[in-house]
Each structure stands twice: as structure tokens, then as C-alpha cells.
């Protein structure tokens, strides 16, 4: 059984169980390992990818639901907000263990793509679904603000 969709801008057909979560299809079938497994229940955000530009949890999204749609993973991030977010992450030295950061960056980029000047409350609401056990939250917040400033210029 195969599912066709756009993966990081390339039309892709994956031969896999249509009920397989997108997370595992992307990782084990397409071989893109930047997206991480953290909880399997959409509780931690480590698996965040973009579906038609919106941040979703790939661990609870069956592969079949992305048929004909556009999926972007950390490997396919492009555009001004995404690059600003990644640069701010490095500049402000956000990552510690780093495991959750693909998901954090996907959520942060989706936020900035819809809201180029988010308030702290906007950041809370967009980012509170992404857990970081190293608690890099202060730096994530600062990096989102810094990225927003970059985009503005």
C-alpha cells in the first residue's frame, strides 16, 4: 500500500502501512531522522512537522491523511522565518541535549510564519505543547523574539 505526498518539496511515494504514523514513515521509510519520537501521544511535540504549513504532531498522524498534501520536516525547512529561527537558535545557544529542538524549531517557525511579531503570550500558546526536559525555555523564547526582529529588518 503506498501513499503519495509532497515531502520537503519533492513528490514522494512511500510504500508503508497507511495507518503507520507519519513520524515513523518519515524516519524509517523516507530515512529523514531529524524528526524525533518523544511520547507517541501528541503530548511533547518532539515529532512536530508542518502539514500544509501548519505545525502538527506526526506521531499521531496516520500516513494516509497526508496523501496529496505538503509535508515539511526539519530537513526541508526553508524561507526567511525558518532560517531566522535556526540562526537565532545557534546565536543564543538554545540547545542542550538537542533532542526536542527539531520539534521546537518547527513549532517556532510555524508561529513566525503566521505571526511575525509574537508576544510572550503568543509564544506561550504556540510553544507550550513542546516539552524540553533540559528546560531551555527561556532561550527558546528569546530566540523567537530575536528571529522576529531579524525578519522585521
Amino acid at each position, binding site marked *: 500500500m503506498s501513499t503519495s505526498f509532497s515531502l520537503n518539496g519533492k513528490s514522494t511515494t512511500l510504500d508503508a502501512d497507511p495507518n503507520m504514523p507519519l513520524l515513523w514513515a518519515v524516519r*524509517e521509510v523516507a530515512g*529523514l531522522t531529524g524528526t524525533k519520537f518523544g511520547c507517541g501521544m501528541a503530548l511533547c511535540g518532539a515529532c512536530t512537522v508542518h502539514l500544509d504549513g501548519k505545525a502538527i504532531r506526526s506521531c499521531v498522524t496516520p500516513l494516509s491523511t497526508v496523501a496529496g498534501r505538503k509535508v515539511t520536516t526539519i530537513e526541508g*525547512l526553508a524561507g526567511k522565518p525558518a532560517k531566522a529561527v535556526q540562526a537565532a537558535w*545557534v546565536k543564543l545557544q538554545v540547545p542542550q541535549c538537542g533532542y*526536542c529542538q527539531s520539534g521546537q524549531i518547527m513549532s517556532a517557525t510555524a508561529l513566525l510564519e503566521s505571526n511575525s511579531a509574537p508576544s510572550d503570550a503568543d509564544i*506561550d500558546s504556540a510553544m507550550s505543547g513542546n*516539552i524540553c526536559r533540559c528546560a531551555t525555555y*527561556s532561550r527558546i*523564547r528569546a530566540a523567537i523574539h530575536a528571529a522576529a526582529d531579524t525578519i522585521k529588518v
Partner: protein
Amino acid sequence: MTTQPQAAPRSTRREFLKSAGTVGAVALTIGFEWAGTARRAFAGPVAPSAGASFAPNAFLRIGSDNSVTVIAKHVEMGQGAYTGIATVVAEELDADWAQVRVESAPADAARYANLAFGKLQGTGGSSAMANSWMQLREAGGKARVMLLTAAAKQWKVPLAELTVEQGTVYHAGSKRQAKFGALVATAATLPVPEAVILKDPKDFKLIGHHAPRVDASAKSDGTAQFTLDVMLPGMLVALLKRPPQFGATVKSFDAAAAGAVPGVVKVVAVPRGVAVVAKSFWAAKQGRDALQIEWDDSKAEKRSSSAIMEEYRRLADQPALSARKEGDAAKAIQSAARKLSASYEFPYLAHAPMEPLDAVIKLSANSCEIWAGDQFQTIDQANAARTAGLDPQQVSIHTLYAGGSFGRRANPGSDYIVEAVSIAKAFGADGTPIKLQWTREDDIHGGLYRPMYFHKLEAGLNAEGRLTGWRHVIVGQSIVADTPFSGLIKDGIDGTSVEGAANIAYAIPNIAVDLSTTKTGVPVLWWRVVGSSHTTFAVEAFIDEAAHAAGQDPFTFRHKLLDQHPRMKAVLELAADKAGWSTPLPPGKGRGIAVAEAFKTFVAQVAEVSVGKDGQIKVDRVVCAVDCGTPINPDIIAAQMEGGIGFGLGAVLYGAITLKDGRIEQDNFNGYRVLRMNEMPKVEVHIVPSTEPPTGVGEPGVAPLGPAVANAIFAATGKRVHALPFTRV
């Protein structure tokens, strides 16, 4: 060249002294012998870079392409060890930071032992920088001398006329210069000097300054490789069904339904349960869900945690072993003008690192190759060998980035490694790579928790409000009992149960600290900051109660009792000062202070808390002062304090693993809540300048957070907290 370098580029450098004996003892300073460690362990080859290279010691390799590769004997699990290690080597080498990269050391205790652990290679006890500080400075410094000597030889100029800066050697007189890469071929022919003159700290260019993390880019673009990301040709994925209660075993199982799931290759029984080995995670998961297992619970722990705590409360009034006794605390308290008492209850806690435990094993008849975010290489090597029926030298380990650990990946039984090896063995030990993947539920249910504890405290104050007696009873499980580390138990006292309490720093004339060690069927382990994760709360919350009883300001009360502990006193002062301790806060808000020494690092924190009308707690701000000796990388120190505060706050507000009839009641991040973005306070970190030897920063920031918050709640509401966790008062 003879054994002594004849010249150093700067006259200010001081003689390097043999340092092994001066490395600070940390929690796991042990004379522990593990079978196999005396022999040189099988070392995976350190891959050479293209072209000629120069590897003067086990920690460093310089390529003809000018690359400087630092070999890290410690795992990078977020704490910044890779960057810290590279900073120290690069400093003494005078390397160009942009050319520095880090690769993980193979499992080889002979070369890569943690000097704080004796003969073990492993990471823990916030010891990575403390134990390797002089070892790495020497490694970098000797290599620098050899490169300079090579230049002197090539250019036929005196060594003393050479200088080195950012990876380039200069000879001013002849206006010659060479990058390290041009010198490696000659340097590689030179003898390694036996001693080297190290830099004067005032000449440090990287240490104490900003050296960006070596892993920040890879961890911001998805390319950092974790164990989850290991994909080997023909690799299979295994999920293991473990018993629902600790101590239960498989009575019988039916693998028919599991085996029928497309993609499932084999179902195998192993000592810890039944494993489903499949071509994908998803197939293994479906297969595991379809397993039918009957468990034998005759030897299982079937109690509830509430019943265990009830027993602990009773034990607190029974005779216990003395961990510290000075004067006569009981008598002093009895005759005191003012007496107070309190108890504090602490739950089991899971580490819950973001990367659920995982390991890849390639096992064949005479070798076992392991890929893991390995935190305890020598122990894991030995346990894997025993499980596989091999010699430790036949076990090699590729240490990858660990997606968090907080202590979980360093466990004496190597649980996840042993499981993976046992599955590979049951599968046939045919060289098929198998990745054992834990799910989040496996992690939350998987045991090796921070133990549950009950603390009972009593104190006496004289008419002037000075503490005259202090009695502290701790009840709970030993972390090291029944493990190869049980030798750490002295006269019945597991130091990890009482650290932070038995060494209470406050000047009190009569002190008694007792320990009642319990046994349960729930497996326990060190959890970030180990004993101080509970003892600091008890001590610092109770000293706050004493200050209140004495009618004194909590900062002043502590301050007066710390004359013998100047570094502790200094961080207390710094935190209070930066927090504006004496400035008023609006109603509904409160400020609390706490201080701790953990792993020879001193940390004080002031928390500012808002308490809503419904009693809901919000921590607004935490001001942190830390003295960790020489600050190697100030930004990483700040990051570890920030992270420790967030990690600690999650535990204070929500952390609890509870058992009902022996079954864990939490499953995932819904039941086992951790801190989220909207709950993170503003954090300010202030680092005490110091030239003392560096100490750890990964764990100590956790210790004072809980009591600082609890004391702030009291300041805001007049209510004391006596059981963790608490989200409202």
C-alpha cells in the same frame, strides 16, 4: 628534545603539578573494581582524518588540514561536556576554536576513566570538568610544546623565540608562520614531554570567555545523531513487553497474534519479558500490543506508594543509624526555649529524558557492538559482556549524543543495554543489528526512580533566637545497596541518602542526622543532584521555619550561621543582592531563598512567586548565584542553572510516580507532568569569579529551587509546604 621543555612562550606560566591527587572528590569517588577493567579494554579505532595526523595523546588529534579533533571521554547529554572538554584542550593548545571538533572516545577505561570514579569510564556526579581539568590542560599543553618544537626544528630557530596564537605558530625574527597542519608531520616524530608548563589563568582566551557550543548547529538543523537515528543495513527494531509490576516474571505467553503482524520477524523471550523484533518500529509496536502474556506476580512488589509512605512515617520514630552526631541534639532541643518540628514527604520521580531509552546492538559469536547515548561505558561493557557470554574486551561502544539522561543512562545494572543484548542473543546472535526502543510508557513504568523519602526534623532555639539543636531523620531506600557500588555504604550509611543533610553547613552546636534505610521492590537510581534533590528541600525549608520562629529575616538568619563556609555565604549574599531581597513585593507575591552545596559547587537561589486567589502557584522569577570554581564556559554554566531551575520546578510542581497495588499510575507526559514553556520563570544567573579548580554545573542548580519556591509561598501566604509535589496551597 629531552623530556623537559626548555622554554615556554610566556614567562607568566607556572609549573604544572601532577594533579591526580588534587582532583576534587565527588559523590562517586570510589575504589571500585569491575572485572575486566584492569586489562586494557577493546578500543574502537579512532578514525584518522585525511592525510597525516598528529595524536600526541588519547585526547587529541591534529590533522594536516589544521583540524583539531578533541576526543571526549564523557557523553554529551546536554550538559555541555563536549564544549567544555574542547575548551580546555584548545586553551592550552592555543588552537583556533573554529577548527576544533569533538568526537566521542571508545569504551576504554585504561585511557578514558573518569578520574573521580577510579577505574571506571563514565559520566556523572557533575564531574566531567572537575576530573579532567588538569588531564586535558596537560594534553593540550604538551601538544602545543610539541608543535612549537616541530616549528623550531623545521625553521632551525630557538624554541624560546616562537609564539603561538589561534592555531598558528609564529617566529617574529624571521617573519615565518605556520598553521598547525604544516607542523603535524614533524611533531608526530617527537617524544611526548613528561611535564609541561601550563598557562597562567589570566592569560586564558577561551576559558572564562565565550566559546560557542560545538553541537549547537547540528542540534538546530536536525543532523545531530542520537541512538534513535542509527540506521544500519538490515537493522531490526525491538520492543519489549515488561511485567506490569516490579519483580513479576513471565509465566507463559502466546506469540501467535504478534507473530502474525506484518513486519514482525521474531518473538523472543528474555529475562525481563517478551520482545517483538520487527522490520519497523510500527510493526514491533503492533506486535507487542498483540502479545498475550500471563505474568507470575508471586514475587512482585504489590504495595501502593501511599502504604510505603505510611510505613516510612512510622519508621521515622524508630531507632535509626547515625550519619552525623555532634553534641546532644535531643537534650538541646528538649531544654530549648522554643521548639519546632516538621516533616517533609518526597515521591518517586522518573528522569523522563526526551529521548526514550534506546540502544542498537550488533551481536555475533565473538563480538558485541553497541550504539547508545552511553553514560557508563565500563559498567555497560561488563554487563553486556556477561549477558552475551563474552569478554569485556569483545564489547565495543559507540557513544552517541544522549537525548537527556539526568542520571538514567548511568545505572549499575545497565538495564536498557542488558535488555538489548539479551534480545540480540535470543534472536540468534547472528550479527543482525537490533535497535531496542523504549516507548514513553516504558520509560515512565520502567523504574530506577529517584527514591521516595520521608524526612522528620526537630530544632530548638534559645531565648536569643539562635539554633541550639537540630535533629534530622531520613527514611528511604538506598540507591547503591545491592549494586556493585554497595561498597560506598559506610557503617550502614549510604552517603547518597544523606548528602546535603549530614553535611549541613549551618553552625549549630548540637546536631544529629539519622538514616533509616528501607527496602522495597521498586528499583531506584540517582536522579539529577542525587541526595540533594530531597535533603536540600528538607534542610532549607526547615531552616526557614526556624528563622520565622526566631522572628528573623530568612536571609539574615542563614547568613549568621555560615561564618565557617565563606563560599556558601558569598553565593547567598550575591543571590540576595541581585534579587533585591529587601525590596517590598505587592500582596499575593512572596520571595524565598535557599542555598546548597552539591558536588563542591555552591548555589543560592531567590524565587519570586505569585499565589492566585485559588491558591495556584506561579513562579515569576528566579535569581541564581553560583560558585563552581574557575568558570570554564560562563554561558554553559548559565544554561545549566537555567535548565536545573526548570527541571527542578517541574518536579516541585508536578513530579510524582505513584503505585497502586504495585502498578505505576502514570503512563506518559499527561500523568507524569513536567515543566512547559508557559511555566518557565524568568531566570537570572550570576557567576562568582574564581580561580579555584572547576566543579560541576549539571546538577547543583536543581538543589535549592524547591525550597526557594516553598519559602516564597510561605512569604506570600503564611502557608508551609510539607509534601511534594504542590501546584497550589
